[in-house]
């Protein structure tokens, strides 16, 4: 404790007092002395530790004595000089409170906005994922360039083959997550996410086992006892974190599983997971073309990605040679885990916002530089007196810089406070699928960032004014007027330039946010192709132990369908394998079968869904041709399909698709088209990654276990949640449902990032506009104040007030025009850079450019009015007498 104090004291001494050569020498001398002392104590029989402690005790006494004596013996020059500068700066700050408040607010807003965005990016993109050694962890995807398939899961036999043959990886972990019902001794069954995972996963990912052990390699083979590892969360909730949990049971899908371990909370890599079961891959039973396993590999230390991929390519080639049918065109590649878990759209969006706040910070700095320049004009006398008293230019510059630093530091403190609120707002607005959204916080790095921003602001905003302000010559200013000083004209030119820069940057930010706003507006008006209002949705995944066959499930779903239809306010109930904007991503390559169509090689990747008879009705998706499914669409001898209009037009341009046949997935089954539906947006409102769609009939695919229900109501859908829960419970009390949500909010999910960007950018742009207006106003006011005498003379000589106003306006107007032109040029560059992320906007959206320029010029004109009025109000007599 005391030693700690002493260490701190010593480091403080070292940093502040032991400055300069003399101090360094003293430190070396003391160190030498201390070593001798320790050596002596050692010789007297103390242990090394005792000797060090004893020496430290002696030095504790020294530190006290030293402080007293040192003050007389040496003056730590830089420290006291610095403190004096800071004291002076504080005094100067108090002397002009209005100026200080304005500068601190300006910098606080800029630093606050930057710190907010930095914290978001830091917490989501940059901070370490909850895995150890993340630079060695890779997703191991399969791909098939010929079929246009990238980043596909692996098939089990391939996983087993790769794992046996590769030498580049320390381990390959296969994972697959699924929905289960979960119950413990004292808790009712609920829905949970369960992950099947290879043995050794805790070591590979660096997740600690809190209790018990990881799965053993011997357990990770087909057959064997039902065992599970549970999450820390489940352990605390259901088992009160008891150490003796190992050996107890948890019911997964109503089947008892013996618990063998508890894994640390980091294991939520794929969202909240409560139970882990051994993967138990069965290569002999697995289909080589059934790709459902997500594989993560950990490279051996020292193995590069290129080496590993070269080896994978060789193995893939041998697999293709061995299994030409199922492996045709299949290859594999690696993707860094860290890269994959942050979607590129997020990265881009967040970086865009960081760029925008950076711009805002620059504008704020330009503004404060301007304020400082105006003030140094007014302080010319004070500075001149200092110069004649012998202050060097360096000293003056240092003092002016310290003043800026004090302002910037206060701004940084304010900024951090603002950032707290900013983060609240971001947390409230940001989509919940933003990775690690809950972890967004002001962290150490954020504070460090605010500190750097503070220093950067000091330099950017303070350097020019300090250099200019310290350029004072003593004589003329003491006796004469400010006008006589050579620096003034130059300085006002500098200030004019700063205003032009501010106007240009503000316009760029205005245009940029205008473009994003327009894009957001267009996106939010996109018709997804279905009617999302008034629909409540939920998901259900009956477990295999209770509902063994397709018939079991069909009976459950039918009873559920009847119960839900009978609820008051419900007008329709539909069932599907996956909702639009839901989690599932299913697509298959589909080939036209009829020779009349396009050549079979021109297959198309199409998204697919299994839907029931009411699906198109309940979601209000128009059928352009043919019919919806019926209960009779259940014949595997003559399977039926509904395809989307885009797919129909692609295969049979200008013809009716009804009665034509397609071959999804390239297998044996040939489906006859019985209906054509309008294309809808399934995943992506902008449609950029949208495939055409095809629909399989529920009766044909009765074995599909994971189903979503859509309930159309005439009452607000969210009010039906409890009734729906009850309906399920009366049919099977142990069957949990999950994902209860309105369809509208699902469809809105895609809008959250654009909404966040648009909202934040509008705020930034408004702030920028405000700052530019303040900057312009400050420059023009000072200019008028400086030229009061000149204006007075002009008026005395007969100049009209109108001419005086025109003079002020033309000066300000010139700055605005120059800034606007520069800003438009900058904006064109910014628009080009932005265009990739925008929806449906032309790169040079004339409306946005025009409106932004008008808003800017209008605001600028407003900020010119007051100074112009003041100039017009100059009384020539007073103005002349005041000199």
């Amino acid at each position, binding site marked *: 404790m005391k030693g700690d104090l002493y260490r701190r004291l010593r480091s403080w001494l070292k940093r502040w007092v032991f400055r300069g050569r003399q101090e360094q020498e*003293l430190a*070396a*001398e003391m160190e*030498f002395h201390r070593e001798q002392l320790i050596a002596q104590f050692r010789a007297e029989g103390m242990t090394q530790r005792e000797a060090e402690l004893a020496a430290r005790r002696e030095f504790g*006494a*020294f530190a006290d*004595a*030293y402080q007293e*004596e040192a003050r007389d013996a*040496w003056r730590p020059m830089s420290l006291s000089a610095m403190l004096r500068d800071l004291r002076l700066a504080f005094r100067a700050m108090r002397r002009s409170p209005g100026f200080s408040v304005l500068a601190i607010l300006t910098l606080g807003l800029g630093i606050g906005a930057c710190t907010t965005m930095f914290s978001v990016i830091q917490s989501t993109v940059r901070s370490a994922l909850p895995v150890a050694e993340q630079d060695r962890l890779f997703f191991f995807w399969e791909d098939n360039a010929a079929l246009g398939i990238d980043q596909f899961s692996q098939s089990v036999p391939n996983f087993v083959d790769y794992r046996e043959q590769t030498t580049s990886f320390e381990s390959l972990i296969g994972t697959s997550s699924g929905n289960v019902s979960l119950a413990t001794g004292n808790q009712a069954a609920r829905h949970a996410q369960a992950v099947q995972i290879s043995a050794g996963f805790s070591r590979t990912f660096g997740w600690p086992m809190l209790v018990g052990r990881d799965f053993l390699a011997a357990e990770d083979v087909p057959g064997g006892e039902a065992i599970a590892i549970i999450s820390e969360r489940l352990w605390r909730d259901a088992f009160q974190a008891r150490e003796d949990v190992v050996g107890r049971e948890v019911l997964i899908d109503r089947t008892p599983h013996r618990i063998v371990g508890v894994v640390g909370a980091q294991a939520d890599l794929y969202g909240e997971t409560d139970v882990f079961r051994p993967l138990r891959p069965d290569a002999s039973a697995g289909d080589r073309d059934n790709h459902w396993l997500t594989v993560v590999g950990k490279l051996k230390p020292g193995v590069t990605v290129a080496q590993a991929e070269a080896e994978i390519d060789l193995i893939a080639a041998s697999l293709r040679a061995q299994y030409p049918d199922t492996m045709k065109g299949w290859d594999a590649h690696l993707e860094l885990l860290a890269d994959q878990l942050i979607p590129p759209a997020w990265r881009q969006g967040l970086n865009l916002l960081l760029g925008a706040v950076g711009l805002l910070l620059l504008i704020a700095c330009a503004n404060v530089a301007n304020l400082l320049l105006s003030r140094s004009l007014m302080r010319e006398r004070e500075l001149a007196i200092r110069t004649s008293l012998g202050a060097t230019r360096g000293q003056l510059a240092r003092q002016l810089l310290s003043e800026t630093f004090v302002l910037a530091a206060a701004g940084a403190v304010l900024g951090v406070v603002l950032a707290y609120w900013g983060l609240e707002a971001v947390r409230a607005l940001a989509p919940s699928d933003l990775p690690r959204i809950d972890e967004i916080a002001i962290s150490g790095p954020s504070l460090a960032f605010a500190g750097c921003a503070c220093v950067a602001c000091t330099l950017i905003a303070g350097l020019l004014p300090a250099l200019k302000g310290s350029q004072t010559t003593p004589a003329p200013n003491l006796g004469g007027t400010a006008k006589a000083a050579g620096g003034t004209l130059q300085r006002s030119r500098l200030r004019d330039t700063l205003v032009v820069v501010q106007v240009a940057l503000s316009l760029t930010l205005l245009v940029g946010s205008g473009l994003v706003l327009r894009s957001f507006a267009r996106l939010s008006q996109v018709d997804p192709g279905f009617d999302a209002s008034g629909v409540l949705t939920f998901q259900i995944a009956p477990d295999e132990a209770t509902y063994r066959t397709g018939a079991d499930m069909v009976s459950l779903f039918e009873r559920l369908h009847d119960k839900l239809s009978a609820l008051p306010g419900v007008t329709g109930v539909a069932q599907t394998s996956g909702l639009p904007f839901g989690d599932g991503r299913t697509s298959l390559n589909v080939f036209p079968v009829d020779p009349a169509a396009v050549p079979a090689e021109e297959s198309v990747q199409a998204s697919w869904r299994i839907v029931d008879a009411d699906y198109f009705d309940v979601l209000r998706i128009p059928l352009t041709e043919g019919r919806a499914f019926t209960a009779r669409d259940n014949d595997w001898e003559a399977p039926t399909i509904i395809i989307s209009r885009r797919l129909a037009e692609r295969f049979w341009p200008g013809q009716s698709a009804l009665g034509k046949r397609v071959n999804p997935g390239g297998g044996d089954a040939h489906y006859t088209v019985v209906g054509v539906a309008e294309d809808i947006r399934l995943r992506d409102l902008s449609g950029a990654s949208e495939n055409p769609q095809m629909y399989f009939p529920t009766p044909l695919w009765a074995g599909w276990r994971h189903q979503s229900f859509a309930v159309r109501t005439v009452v607000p859908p969210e009010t039906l949640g409890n009734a729906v829960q009850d309906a399920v419970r009366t049919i099977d009390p142990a069957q949990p449902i999950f994902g209860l949500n309105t369809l509208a909010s699902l469809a809105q999910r895609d809008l959250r990032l654009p909404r966040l960007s648009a909202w934040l950018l509008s705020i930034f742009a408004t702030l920028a506009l405000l700052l530019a207006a303040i900057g312009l106003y400050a420059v023009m006011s000072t200019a008028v104040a400086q030229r009061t005498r000149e204006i007075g003379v002009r008026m005395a000589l007969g100049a009209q007030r109108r001419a005086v106003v025109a003079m002020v306006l033309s000066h300000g107007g010139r700055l605005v025009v120059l800034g606007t032109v520069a800003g438009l040029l900058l904006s064109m560059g910014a628009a080009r850079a932005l265009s990739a992320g925008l929806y449906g906007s032309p790169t040079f959206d004339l409306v946005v450019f025009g409106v932004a320029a008008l808003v800017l010029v209008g605001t600028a004109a407003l900020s010119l009015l007051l100074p112009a009025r003041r100039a017009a109000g100059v009384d020539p007599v007073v103005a002349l007498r005041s000199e």
Partner: protein
Amino acid sequence: MIRRIMAKPLRNELLQGTLDLLVLQVLSQGKYHGWDVAKRISLLSSDRLTLKQGSLYPAMHRLEAQGWIAADWGVSEAGRSAKFYHLTRSGRRQLEAERAHWESFVDAMGAVLSGQEASE
């Protein structure tokens, strides 16, 4: 018998300049670094005067600032670089003056304490 004199009592009890005198005296006998100065003082005083570096180093630097001692960096017996101090010419004069002053002071004290008039 004073075994160890803490920095503060030493400074308070010794008359002003006594510490300086001790340091000057030690340095009149050769080049020493701070550690050795302290060692020698405690050795010569049979451990009755033990300096703390808290008083020693400021005193040394004060003497250096006065120009009475000078220092250069050298290599210690242990092969480590250390700052060695030595007496300057004006330091030697100062030592003689202070020594005379001290001896006269001790003489006077002794006379008073013994109840006899001093020899001078």
